[in-house]
């Protein structure tokens, strides 16, 4: 695939992600930010991330959240290009989803993973701050409702 085409697809995807992010913000869907540590330029989960992921796994397995569906939104800081950060954040969101499915047996159908790149900075005053590199978990509603049941 030509690089200009790749870039065009990246921009198109970016617009879609921004739309999803706007919808989430406008709906005020319940969400939590969790700092997950990844190896540099990688979607490999570091051992330091395990305590946070274990707590997330316990939470999503809890009966109080039974039947709810969740968006796992990956975010990066402002270093690097849009396309690079989109791809990296997508891989990281998918890595978190895979961990939750494999380790905590969270139903695959309850989780969606989307990378937002650097579009949704948590700390806009400091675009390179660590806190921007995070995974956001958003409650997107009940499973039956999401599936039109």
């Amino acid at each position, binding site marked *: 695939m030509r690089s200009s085409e790749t870039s065009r697809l990246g921009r198109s995807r970016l617009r879609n992600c921004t739309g999803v992010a706007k919808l989430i913000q406008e709906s*005020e869907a*319940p*969400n*939590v930010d*969790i*700092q997950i*540590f990844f190896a540099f330029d990688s979607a490999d989960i*570091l051992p*330091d991330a395990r*305590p*946070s992921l274990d*707590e*997330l796994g*316990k*939470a*999503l397995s*809890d009966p*109080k*959240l039974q039947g*709810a569906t*969740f968006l796992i939104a990956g975010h990066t800081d402002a270093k690097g290009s849009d396309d690079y950060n989109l791809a990296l954040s997508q891989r990281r969101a998918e890595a978190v989803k895979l961990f939750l499915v494999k380790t905590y047996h969270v139903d695959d159908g309850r989780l969606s993973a989307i990378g937002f790149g650097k579009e949704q900075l948590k700390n806009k005053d400091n675009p390179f701050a*660590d806190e921007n590199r995070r995974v956001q*978990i958003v*409650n997107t509603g009940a499973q039956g409702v999401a599936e039109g049941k």
Partner: protein
Amino acid sequence: MRFSPSTWTILAVAALAFASFGAVPAAQAQAVKNADDIISGLQPLKTRF
């Protein structure tokens, strides 16, 4: 050599600050949210506890 009490105070505060700086590894500086906090944050607004 003799030190005044204020010098000892400054040295003690500096030593404490230095010790606490090294006690928390950088990678663990971010507090881990516990499962109950996550559940609470993800509860639909009507049923939050």
